[in-house]
């Protein structure tokens, strides 16, 4: 039951050496994320539909930052600031969903291989190794080329390529937990697989998984941006990576339109940094030893 206590104790600070709130960098990251989430939620409500409709915009293309569009306009005359706000949602959504998918697969594979061992573990681990040695980006590109273009494909591509490290970590943790006397006692008392996994192993790996998920979001956002930048994303959906893609496709660099290149790039850096900070802070809180 220790694991559950740890989860509950993150914020309150009941765990050994201070809670999450004691980690200043982590709190700063969380604040950034809160702002990003707020923008993502409010953007679709506040931005008038016409403002991002290429057929309706009235501003000229490639306008430098100025009144009315304080981050300039893109190649079609849409406001970059509004595009940024609109893109926040996509980038966060893809990042989160892909991370959940990756960590979900990783946890499942990790626990199963750690708990059951034997042939099943062997098979699962070989699959894990297979995905581990494959360059994730290449695999993701291949997947998103074969599957129909779209948000779902991107999420799938990222999710399917970034779970092996989680699986390895969770398996290791599962093995440690199962070696503990209380699991042995539970078994002796007649606890089946479901009981052991559900009541003992899972609660103990949850903090680790949570930390892993937070860090996975960061890399998933980068992966999404990469794929979108390479033109493999959903072409009609605005995301930060897609903005970078359009910027380079439509000649923002030769146009010297820094206002179309820098904001999405910086936004990716900031949000990824925020997730990493939060992840590291959580790690410091939940890591058993240290």
């Amino acid at each position, binding site marked *: 039951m220790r694991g559950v206590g740890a989860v509950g104790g993150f914020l309150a600070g009941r765990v050994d050496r201070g809670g999450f709130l004691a980690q200043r960098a982590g709190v700063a990251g969380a604040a950034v994320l809160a702002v990003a989430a707020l923008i993502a939620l409010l953007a679709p409500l506040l931005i008038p539909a016409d403002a991002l409709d*290429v057929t309706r915009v009235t501003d000229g293309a490639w306008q430098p930052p100025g009144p009315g569009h304080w981050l300039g306009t893109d190649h079609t005359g849409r406001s970059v600031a509004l595009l940024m706000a609109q893109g926040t949602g996509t980038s966060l959504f893809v990042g989160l969903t892909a991370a959940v998918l990756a960590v979900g697969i990783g946890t499942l594979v990790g626990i199963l291989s750690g708990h059951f061992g034997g042939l099943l573990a062997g098979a699962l681990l070989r699959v894990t190794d297979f995905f581990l040695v494959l360059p994730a980006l290449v695999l993701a590109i291949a997947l998103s080329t074969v599957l129909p*273009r779209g948000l779902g494909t991107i999420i799938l591509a990222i999710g399917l390529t970034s779970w092996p490290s989680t699986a390895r970590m969770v398996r290791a943790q599962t093995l440690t937990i199962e070696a503990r006397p209380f699991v042995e006692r539970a078994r002796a008392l007649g606890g089946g697989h479901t009981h052991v996994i559900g009541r003992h192993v899972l609660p103990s790996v949850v903090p680790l998984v949570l930390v892993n998920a937070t860090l996975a979001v960061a890399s998933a956002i980068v992966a999404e941006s990469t794929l979108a930048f390479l033109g493999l994303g959903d*072409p009609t959906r605005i995301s930060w990576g897609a903005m970078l893609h359009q910027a380079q*496709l439509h000649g923002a*660099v*030769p146009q010297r339109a820094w206002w179309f290149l820098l904001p999405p790039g910086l936004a990716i850096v900031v949000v990824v940094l925020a997730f990493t900070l939060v992840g590291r802070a959580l790690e410091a809180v939940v890591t058993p030893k240290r």
Partner: protein
Amino acid sequence: MILKVAIVQQIDSMNPFLAVFQSSTEIGRLMYDYLTAYTAADQTVTEGLANKWEPSPDKLTWTFTVPEGKKWSDGEPITARDVAFTYNLMLSDSVARTANGSFVTNFQDVTAPDDRTVVIRTKTPQVTMLALDVPIVPKHVWEKVSGIKDYANDQMPVVGSGPFVLTEHVAGQFIKLKANKNYWRGAAKFDELHFVYFQNSDAAVQALGKGEVDLVNRMAPAQFDSLDGKAGVTRNKAQGRRFTELMINPGAQTRTGEPIGDGNPALKDVRVRRAIAQAVDLDALVQRVNLGYAEKGSGLVPPVFGKWHWQPTEQEQRRFDPAAANAALDAAGFPRKADGTRFPLRLIGRAGRAYDEQASEYLKRSMGEIGIPLDVRLVSDNQLNEATTAATYDLAFSGWATNIDPDFILSLHTCAQRPGADGKGGTTDAYFCDETYDKLYAQQLSEFDEGKRVEIVKQMQARFYDQVPAVILSYENALEGYRSDHFATFTTQPAQGGVIMAQNGMWGYYGAEPAGRAVQAQGSRWVGLALGGAVIAVLVAVVVVMARRRNATAGERE
């Protein structure tokens, strides 16, 4: 001296009988001469491999003379037998007709009574006999080829008759050609011609700005604008001979009438196709996507070929009118459902092509207006090609370069050009098959009175416009740029407002003149002096510093 040309489009085949992509046929033109050619100045017919031609009075027999003295790049003489061999190969092997079949479908037989004379007999009089855009291949190489379908034509150096010889091809990286010293017009004024692949045109434009490549075409308008006033770069805005179209799958069928592909059945209804065409704001696309560097689309022949070009009259004109399009769809039996949509369509285009990416957004909005949710899929060249040949599309972006004689572009829409039962052979553009159109096509093919033929060709375009198997969106200006500090001039076709790349010929590359050597030598001497000076200065500084340090240590030792 090497002319480096940026290339973005992939190569489908180096085999001239199979090559359909513009990039491939462009390189084909450099490797192989045709029977006749078009002048650079005004695109009139001129000497190709043949220098004389004579139709019989009934226009059914044409005699071409291949003069003595022309040689293949390996030194073998070019004879009439090579010409006859090429055409006969196409007549006997349906695979060899894949790319240029339309030119020979009307041929009765082709013979070479001697080394200098080619006699072509046609079934009916054919007007395109001086516009046979078929690369002539060397018989002594190709008679050993067993299967055209699998022949990659990559025995380097590839024996050819054109101004350049293919010497190396690494797919997706570069294509290298050397000037053909045996070329009968005389070798080009520079040694090698390299096509360098770029992932996207932006990178190509950047490379042009930095001087890594010498020639870039098909620039996006924004990229073209960005090169304005750049030192060492000259821009060339030309009237293009290409059009961009939006294909609407009209219920694709094979030649034998078997349905193929999975196009939305609603599109079989011409009223639906017309409504879709009516909902597309062509003016807005030209203004906002092409940034004005294009002309609004109408017929199949671009305005650069003035007399063949067709414009709809006031009554024929389909004006942008979403309300009318909505009403038409209602009337056609596709009412809006509860969620406001009628039926979904897929739009497929090429990823990385600025036009497709941007225009697809416009189309998504425009189609949304008339209750058609668009699923936009941007894919690689090959995937797009697969989808369009297998007819697994509803709407698709496409485009064709047209020739001086409109026959080829018109032939793409005849029933006979649809694929055979195995899905292979034939080069239909949009799976159009229309009796009226086919009848007109046959008529124009045997109409030797040019004025009358022009009329028929215009009627065909009007029929095409009315039946909309594709909406001609725009005739893009060809936006090109070149390093005028490396190459002083390029031959454009036509001379006024013409293009350098994607010509009806190879003049652009062949006629490139390296920039004056004297100027360059002087420039490099100054650079050399400056560099030398800098090196000496650094050396002196190093020596001084070393000496001082040595002194210092010596002092410390004492």
